[in-house]
Structures are given as C-alpha cells and as structure tokens.
C-alpha cells in the first residue's frame, strides 16, 4: 500500500529517536485506554462476587457456569456468537454518535421498529410469492431506513432545538415499543395465532439462513463487517476526522467551517441504521415475525458494550462477544443456581456504574503521562 510505504519513508527521514518517541507516546496513551477499562471490568467482577457471597451463592460456581454456558462447548460458542450479533450492532449505534459527542441510547427503539418494519413489509411480498432473496433485501432496507429515521429524529431535535439527546432517544424508545405493540395487538395482528400477539410469520422458506458450516446466522458476519467499515470510516476518512473534531470541540469545529449539525444528523442516521439491521436480523433469522420479544434488552446491553469498548468499533467486537457469552449463559445460571434472570441485569448495571466511575482514573497515573513544558501560573 502506498500509504504504508509513504509513512515509512517519512518517518524514516525523521531521526530514529523521534520515531521511538512518537511510538512510545502513542503506546502510552493507548495503553491507558485499555488498562483502565480492564481494571474496571475486574473490579466489577469482584464486587459482583461479593454480592453473590452475601446472598449465599458461590461466585466460583457462577463464573464457571458463565464460562461453560458461554464458551465451553461448540454449541455454546455458537449460541454466544448468535447473541453477539445484535450486540455488535446496537453497540455501534451508541459508538458512532458518541464520537461526535452525543450520548445516544435509542438503539432498543430503533431495533424494535426496524424489526417491525421488516416484518410488516414482508407480508405483501410473502403473500405475493416474491423470491426470498428479493424479500430479504426489501426487508433489510425497511429495517435500515426505519431505524435510521427513528434515531435521526433525536439527532435533528438535538441539532435544531438543542434537545438533550439522551432523554429524547430514550423517550423515542418507549414510543417505538408502544407503537409496535399498538399495531401488533391491533390492526396487524396475526389472528391465526391465539397465543402471543405478533405479526404474520414470514415462513420458513423466507427466513435468512445460517453461515455455512455453522449454526450462526449471517447477522454476525454483517455486524463484524460493519464494525470494521465504521472503524475505517472514523479513523481514515475526512468524514471521520470531521466527526472526531466536532465531537472533541464543537466550537472549534464551527470555527473551521465544519457543518456540525449535518454531521450530527449523519452520525445518528448511521447509528439508527445499525440498530435497524439488528432488528431485521432478529426477525428474518430468528423470530420470523414481530412481537414483544423484539424488545429483549439488546439495545441497553449494547450501551454498556460500547462504553466498555470506549466507543471504538473494532474493540466492540470482542466486548460484544464477551457479553454475548454472559447473556447466553443466563439460562444455565438461572436454572443451576436458582437465581432470577434479572441477575444478568444486576451484573450489567454494576459493571456500567463501575466503568463510568473509572473514568476518573484517567490522567492520574504518571506512567501514562507525557507532559509538555510546564507553564507558570
């Protein structure tokens, strides 16, 4: 690649001492961003273990079951990967707006509405006997567009009126779930199904298949691909640079003539699209229809995943797999240790609080600091 060669030549022209200094500065800054979240993860694990002890349960048994249920057998690994797919996508839905400085948590709503839209748009296509490939493409598009628009609303409200995006995206999530329930229980309800209210199933023939040789659906591949693409977008394109500039200091961005408002809305559309695709996969690859199970909390877990990965799309992949494992092992843990399924919620909440508190540790340890000349005050 021309770039690599170029940068090698350029840095080679600079004296070797400079190259080492550059590298060590970058390494130390980067190390801080990895060590502290890992520390936070370990600390929250410790606190949760204490919590279990107080309740008379065995922490070692818990962690053992999580490892076994999430990563122990080929079956459990595939189950984990299956659960990681939507987590990667909903985490991306938080990460991209985070880079432009927004705390946007509307992934759950965009997922639900994206899945709902794909299920609904499938109905006329399935009834008209369209080809599965076309149906799936149309469904995916519906999911993407709906999800993008839903989070886009929060972005527009923030840009045009300064409405706090955390509150508005959360409100939109509640609204989205209510809208879906309204239609699913009402006009779009599949009346042949007396049990759980849902839309008409799209049918086995139309469902998305699994990645050949595995039990995991294509959502995982799409998720990983999107994560890599968005990482490249944020770090190696002018769009990404503009986004990071605006997120780092909106006033400076305006002074540079950047269209901050458009960038905000753009990031929200991308975020919503990611969550919408997740909804599409939930419908097309797993459920086959839209109902209240779409609101399974992937959106909220995705928030934690993104924060733990420091909103870096590449780091989101391993973190999502970790949490996919925790979620996947939830059933096993619940049965074996006789604990409510809210256990995972407690663990997630605790981890999130500890992680956010650990933000205070940045800049405190000399080993990570490389200061310039000091000013007099």
């Amino acid at each position, binding site marked *: 690649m021309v770039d690599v060669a170029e940068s090698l030549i350029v840095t080679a022209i600079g004296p070797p001492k400079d190259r080492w200094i550059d590298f060590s500065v970058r390494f130390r800054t980067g190390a801080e961003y990895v060590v502290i979240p890992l520390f936070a993860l370990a600390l929250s694990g410790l606190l949760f273990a204490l919590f279990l002890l107080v309740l008379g349960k065995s922490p070692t048994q818990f962690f053992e079951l999580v490892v076994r249920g999430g990563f122990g057998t080929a079956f459990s690994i595939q189950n984990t990967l299956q659960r990681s797919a939507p987590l990667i996508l909903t985490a991306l839905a938080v990460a991209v707006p985070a880079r432009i400085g927004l705390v946007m948590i509307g992934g759950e709503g965009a997922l639900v509405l994206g899945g709902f839209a794909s299920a609904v748009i499938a109905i006329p296509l399935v009834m008209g006997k369209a080809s599965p490939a076309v149906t799936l493409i149309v469904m995916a598009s519906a999911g993407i567009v709906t999800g993008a628009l839903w989070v886009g609303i929060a972005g527009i409200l923030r840009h045009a009126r300064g*409405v*706090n995006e955390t509150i*508005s995206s959360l*409100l939109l999530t509640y609204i989205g779930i209510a809208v879906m329930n309204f239609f699913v229980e009402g006009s779009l309800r599949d009346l042949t199904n007396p049990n759980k209210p849902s839309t008409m199933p799209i049918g086995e023939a139309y469902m998305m298949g699994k990645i050949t040789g595995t039990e995991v659906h294509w959502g995982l591949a799409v998720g990983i691909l999107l994560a890599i693409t968005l990482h490249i977008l944020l770090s190696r394109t002018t769009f990404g640079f503009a986004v990071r500039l605006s997120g780092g200091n909106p006033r400076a961005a305006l002074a540079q003539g950047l269209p901050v408002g458009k960038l905000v809305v753009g990031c929200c559309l991308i975020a919503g699209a990611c969550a919408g695709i997740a909804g599409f996969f939930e419908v097309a690859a797993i459920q086959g229809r839209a109902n209240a199970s779409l609101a399974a909390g992937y959106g909220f877990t995705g928030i*934690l995943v993104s924060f733990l990965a420091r909103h870096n799309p590449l780091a989101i992949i391993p973190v999502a797999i970790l949490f996919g494992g925790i979620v996947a092992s939830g059933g096993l843990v619940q049965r074996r240790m006789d604990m409510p399924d*809210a256990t995972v919620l407690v663990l997630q909440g605790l981890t999130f609080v500890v992680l956010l508190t650990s*933000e*205070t540790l940045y800049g405190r340890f000399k080993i990570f600091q490389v200061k310039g000349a000091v000013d007099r005050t």
Partner: protein
Amino acid sequence: MSDNPFLIVLVAMVGGALRVSTPFMFVALGECLTEKSGRVNLGLEGTLVLGAMCAYAISFHTGSPWLGVLAAGGAGAWLGAIHGYVCKLPRVNDIAIGIAMMLFGTGVAFFFGKAYIQPSAPRLGSFSLGGWTGSPQIETALEVNALLIVGVATALLMAWAFANTKWGLIVRMSGDSAPAARAMGVSVDLVRFFSTTAGGFLAGIGGAFLSLYYPGSWNQGLSSGQGLMAVALVIFARWDPVRCVLAALLFGAAGAIGPALQSVGITQGYYFFNAAPYILTLIIMTISAGSKRAMRDVPGELSITK
C-alpha cells in the same frame, strides 16, 4: 347525572389525574432539588422501580404499608447517594451515570422483586375528595391518598425554603455558580451529594405510591419511563417546585386519558394512549429547549442544557 358518559369521563379524568400525578410529583420534586443544586440525575427511573419494590416487600413482611413507604424512601436515598458520590469525581459524565444507575436500580429491583410478584401486600388507604357530593360514582372517582397532600405540602415547603432559608439559598448557589459558592466557603460537592440523596428519597416515595396505591401491585412492568418523564417535567416547570406540581397534574391527566376512556368501554388504541405521555414529554422538551425563558431560569451549572 350519573349516566352522562361525558361527565363520567371528565370526573374519571380528574380523579385519574390526581392519582397518576402523585408519583410524577414526587419524582419531579426530587429531581428539582437535585437540579437546583447543579446535578442531573437521569437514574430516577431505576429509583422509582426500586422504591416500588422495596415498599411492597417491606409492607408484605411487616404488615405496615407506611413502613414500606419509608423503606422506599431509604432505597431511593441509597441510589441517590451513590449517584451523588460518584458524580463528584472528576471526569465522570453525570448523564451516562444516570443511565447506568437506571439500569442498576431496575436490575436490583427485578432481582429481589421476583419473589413478591405473586403475594399480596397491605396497601395504603385512601380518602375521597368527592365525599361531599353525595354521588357514589364521583366519590369513587375522586379517591386519593394522603401522599398527594404530602407531595403538595413538600412542594410548598421547597418553594418557601429556596427563597427564605440559608440552606435553600446554598442549594441555589451551588447550582448556579459553583465558583461563587466555593468562594463563600460552601462545599459544593457535599451540597450536591445531599441534594441528590434527598431527591432520591422523594423519588423512592413516588415509587411506593405506585406499588402500594395505584396501580397497587408489584410487577416488572410497573413503570416504564415515568422517572424519565419527570426529568423533562422539571425543565418544563423551569425549576420551580409549585410549577412542578402543576406540570405533574398535566402529565397525570395525559396518563389518565386511557384508563378513563376504558371506564366507559372505549378500549381501542390502548397502546396509543400509552404512548401519549411520552409524546407529550417529547413535545414539551422540544418547546422548552428552544425557549429563551427556560434558558434564563436554568441553574447555571446544569450540564443538560449547556
């Protein structure tokens, strides 16, 4: 008169508004106190749910619903204290912490609350504001709980305290200009810690109302978003406790439309009316956010509108 459906719906709405508004009132007043001191606590949704569960559980175990109310306040104070302590550490994002506390509080509530979904616990009593009308329907429709009166009294007390007591002014100072407060020797972090804890206490009581009075049971769907709406409510009320009560009544009315219509047999669109409070909240936030008057009244240190 008793057969006029329009009147029935109207009275049902008034009663419903009074009932539904009470938890909003408590959460809003708690958040008002917290925000006046310069902090935003978005985690009150979790506080509401945890308070509801604790109230129900303690009432079940001790037989006294009012002990349950106190326990709910205590649980809320505990969550508020965590929020208040953590947010004073440098570089911690108080908006993200609020979301984390919401998830944590809800998780803890569901975890311990699973055992209390089935059993029945003693509830809070009620008295009727319509006892004098002689019409049994109006009397039933206007049944409220003492907590409503407590809420209104708290609001009046807060409004008076903000203008006429040293502590009230210290809270306002901490929220408006931390450097000025510090220059006067006030420990701003401590003030915010206590305000957030007290705010959590009030929000917890709001939760107790939900599980021990109306709707009067504990389950995992008890609250969805009411704590969040209360935060928006405070902005709409421009951080004035009395206006918080009025805004809570407005939200109560919006939330009471669905059940009121149901009482005369209109059951369609249930979920649409469920969405009404959220949509109202979003509209209100949009209007307040651009409003110059709100911007003038905002406590200067609040990060939500900076």
